[in-house]
């Protein structure tokens, strides 16, 4: 039987590690939501967090770009490092951190602005473009990365909210990559999408892997199996098992993982 916390470093080349989390605890008031989670998240890899509702997977994801700072009763302990730098250090500006560690949410949430401005907003506030031509280039590049350029290039002035759900989600992904992040966090990015749009987003995730570290929280185990190379299974705030996705889905080591992925009560 495995311990509650798996030493995630086994078989991992330290050169490839993007995020290192050690003994992370999260409390919401009295509720101990994340217990002693230690994990290494790799660069240029898609890592899936799976587990039943309330297991802490989203909470842990939100630790990685300090989104829990916005919840007054949340308290995060432990050590989380991005490229060796403590992301919770006092000198770290969470806004700068979130430019490096982008996030895509469950429901597509385009700004009530034009498609162009949705993408241009981030680069503008972070001063990434010197002039209009620069900005145009960033917008086109980002929309191409989001695999939506061909569908919107003739109507960049149209409101982003007028796109279909799947297009809106790809727009949000394009918006997230516009600030040249190093990591993309995705919290159930496909749960509001139809199967075709889901397939397009999954294809996009696979392409993004060439340049980014991608961490995706998903309720669909099939999606985790399809898109990720590493899978972490969370249960009651513990990281139960973390391994190559193929191992998790063919030969999990912990009975709780097995029960969950095979659809058993456990």
């Amino acid at each position, binding site marked *: 039987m495995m311990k509650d916390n798996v030493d995630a470093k086994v078989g991992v080349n330290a050169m490839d590690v993007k995020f290192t989390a050690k003994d992370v605890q999260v409390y919401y008031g009295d509720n101990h939501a994340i217990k002693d989670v230690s994990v290494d998240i790799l660069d240029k890899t898609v890592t899936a967090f799976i587990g039943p509702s309330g297991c802490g997977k989203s909470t842990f994801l939100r630790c990685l770009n300090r989104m829990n700072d916005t919840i007054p009763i949340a308290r995060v302990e432990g050590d989380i490092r991005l490229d060796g730098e403590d992301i919770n250090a006092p000198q770290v500006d969470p806004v700068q951190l979130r430019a490096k560690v982008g996030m895509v949410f469950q429901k597509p949430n385009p700004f009530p602005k034009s498609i162009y401005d949705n993408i241009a907003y981030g680069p503008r506030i972070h001063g990434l473009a010197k002039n209009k031509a620069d900005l145009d280039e960033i917008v086109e590049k980002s929309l191409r990365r989001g695999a939506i350029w061909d569908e919107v290039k003739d109507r960049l002035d149209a409101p982003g909210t007028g796109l279909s759900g799947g297009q809106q989600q790809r727009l949000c992904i394009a918006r997230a990559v516009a600030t040249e992040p190093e990591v993309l966090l995705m919290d159930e990015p496909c749960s509001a999408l139809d199967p075709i749009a889901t397939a397009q987003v999954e294809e996009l995730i696979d392409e993004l892997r060439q340049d980014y570290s991608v961490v995706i929280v998903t309720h669909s185990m099939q999606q985790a199996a399809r898109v990720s190379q590493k899978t972490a299974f969370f249960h009651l705030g513990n990281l139960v098992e973390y391994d190559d996705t193929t191992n998790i*889905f063919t030969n*999990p080591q912990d*009975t709780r993982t097995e*029960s969950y*992925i*095979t*659809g*058993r*009560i*456990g």
Partner: protein
Amino acid sequence: MNDPHIAKAFDRDLEAIQAQVMKMGGLVEEAIREGSKSLKSRDVELAEKVRRGDRQIDELEDLINTQCAQVLAIRQPAATDLRTVLTVMKIAGNLERIGDYAKNMAKRTEVLSQMQPVEGASSAIRRMSKEVGSMLSDALDAYVRRDAELAEDVRHRDLEVDQMYNALFREFLTFMMEDPRNITACMHLHFIAKNVERMGDHVTSIADQAVYLATGEMPDDPRPKDNKAIYRVEGFEEADE
């Protein structure tokens, strides 16, 4: 992992498929038993029954493959469930092949019953078939009980079957050299012995699947084999193997 699935129909599907494999295994064990019995007692009627019975075994294999395809398509099984479906398909294939060998034994029995019996041969083949039959029964037990230890035991027992075959091979050679009138019968008997030896290999493969189902890993130690004797050329014992 005996907890039921949340989707009860998934449990029913998996149980149904495994029940078909066990039914198939029972029919194959019977075919081996009756095939070798008919050979020994020169019972053409029993041999004919074995030949006819192979059809049901083939049909069961088709049914199992169809049901496995449906489970894969509808349930997308993972972990133990996935391994169950994968191993069931392979085992059904192994059982079908064993059934074919038993059928072939019955076919040759019908020919051999027209000929002068070769002394001791059919009893030796019967003993060999009994061993294979008991290995098959244990391999299927190991599968049902998820018992990797028993499966490992079966894997190692195949060595005995190989040795029995080697002994028979040499015996047939001697008979044929002694009296050329024995050649036709000995050729048939040799094919039967070779087929029983092949049955043992399929049983070993079923035992491999039982290990994989139970542990998630294929057995990694090579099982012991004995085929030196038949590849040795008289007078060239030192030759490369």
